[in-house]
């Protein structure tokens, strides 16, 4: 009951292999397909549409000038996404907390949140530009708009997830509103909050890149760079930038998974690896 049965090094290696080998195998297959499209499906004069992997690696990753440009743009977009996410989290927490305290606030706010969620971001691009200009600020606004809803909904759901019996316990012992929030509702909300954060962090990255396409003034983000490469028919650079954008999304997803595990893994996850 206290400790899990020890896993032998060999057993661990075998299980790691079971996890790592299938995606590696698939990766090799994909690379093979990529090469065959580049060399066999595309004629020499069309090859710029899909340069072979080594060419992409050489031009996009190994030429420092290009790679540093990609990294800088990526960093700029990361900052935008992070600022947007922090703002969305702050607004989201406050609103969700208020909504959890009075049904009236929940009923009043919810329809507007659904509207906010349903707004096609493209439709309000001109409005955002009109109000916030076409620089970094507008990109941040896009991130906030698309990251806010999952945070509010998940936080609210989490705050309401404490069991009836636990609330009764706090009632019996005359806990006031603040104590109840601090010692019962906030901790109970954490698993749902982290689920929301993971979704919103991913959306925020997308928001930063999409926002870049419309609001390109100021520091150059990865979206700007993508459209620049595309317009110049720089296939290698374009693919490298796309790959790096995807890696950013993956990194954000992993980062928030790791934070979640560190914060609540001890008591929450059905199976933790400590």
């Amino acid at each position, binding site marked *: 009951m206290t400790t899990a049965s020890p896993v032998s090094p060999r057993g661990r290696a075998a299980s790691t292999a079971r996890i790592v080998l299938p995606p590696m195998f698939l990766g090799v297959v994909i690379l093979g397909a990529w090469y065959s499209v580049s060399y066999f499906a595309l004629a020499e004069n069309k090859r710029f549409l899909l340069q072979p992997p080594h060419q992409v690696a050489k031009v996009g990753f190994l030429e420092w000038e290009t790679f540093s440009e990609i990294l800088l743009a990526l960093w700029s977009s990361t900052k935008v996404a992070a600022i947007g996410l922090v703002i969305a989290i702050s607004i989201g927490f406050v609103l969700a907390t208020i909504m959890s305290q009075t049904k009236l606030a929940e009923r009043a706010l919810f329809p507007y949140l659904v509207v906010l969620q349903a707004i096609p971001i493209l439709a309000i691009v001109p409005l955002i530009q009109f109000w916030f200009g076409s620089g970094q600020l507008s990109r941040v606004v896009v991130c906030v708009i698309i990251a806010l809803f999952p945070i509010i909904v998940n936080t609210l759901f989490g705050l309401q997830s404490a069991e009836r019996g636990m609330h009764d316990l706090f009632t019996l012992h005359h806990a006031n509103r603040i104590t109840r929030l601090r010692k019962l509702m906030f*901790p*109970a909300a954490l698993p749902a909050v982290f689920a929301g954060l993971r979704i919103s962090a991913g959306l925020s990255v997308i928001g930063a890149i999409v926002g870049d396409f419309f609001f390109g003034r100021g520091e150059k983000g990865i979206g700007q760079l993508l459209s620049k490469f595309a317009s110049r028919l720089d296939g290698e650079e374009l693919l490298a930038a796309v790959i790096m954008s995807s890696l950013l999304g993956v990194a954000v997803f992993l980062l928030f998974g790791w934070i979640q595990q560190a914060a609540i893994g001890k008591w929450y996850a059905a199976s933790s690896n400590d």
Partner: protein
Amino acid sequence: MKPDTKEAALSFKEIEMTFPDGTEALKDISFDIKREEFVTIVGPSGCGKSTLLKIASGLLDATGGTVAVDRDRLGYVFQDATLLPWRTVIRNVELLTELHNVPKDERRSLALETIETVGLKGFEDHYPKSLSGGMKMRASLARSLTLKPPVFLFDEPFGAVDEITREHLNDETQRLFKSEGFAGLFITHSIPEAVFMSTRVLVMSARPGRIVEEYEVPFDYPRHPDLRFEPEFARLNGEISKTLRGAHS
């Protein structure tokens, strides 16, 4: 009720409970529980047994009658252990004293003491997810014990654990009752559980719940687990069972 020199620790007087939808849950419930008395209510499902506990604790207001009880340090064990999953056993056990603003050192020593009492020593730093159902219930008991409650309410706490664990928990509860000397009010479906622990068993009728019969349990404390195999124990069980059968219709 027989006159007694001891004052009642928990007293129900003509309690009536009708829910807003018109359901009559309880009707004319009157009885007293003194310190060092352990009273169990058995009755058909949905007869309002749990409602009565909620009224006793103040979680619900009765639509008629009065309850006299000191609600400041009420012990209340729920059907579920209601442990906070993000707290370790010891932090869970400390929760109530924390809510009552007991100083930290005292909180800790009370928690360590009651954890030992319920036999969870060594599990202080475990999270609830790694405990069995019986251990969770023990932790829940320990949590209530930290307040040294003069009145202890039990709302079918051992319904979800297996039979042997239940017998162990029954054994420990009557031991605690004897050592702590609280007034106990216990709700259950199980007649053997009721007879084994109680000084008195009340049988409640189907809705609207009324007390239809009262049994004194004559066995001395501490009660040995083998008491369950005595003919006298079986006879009392049978008698209560018969009354309960009548109460169902």
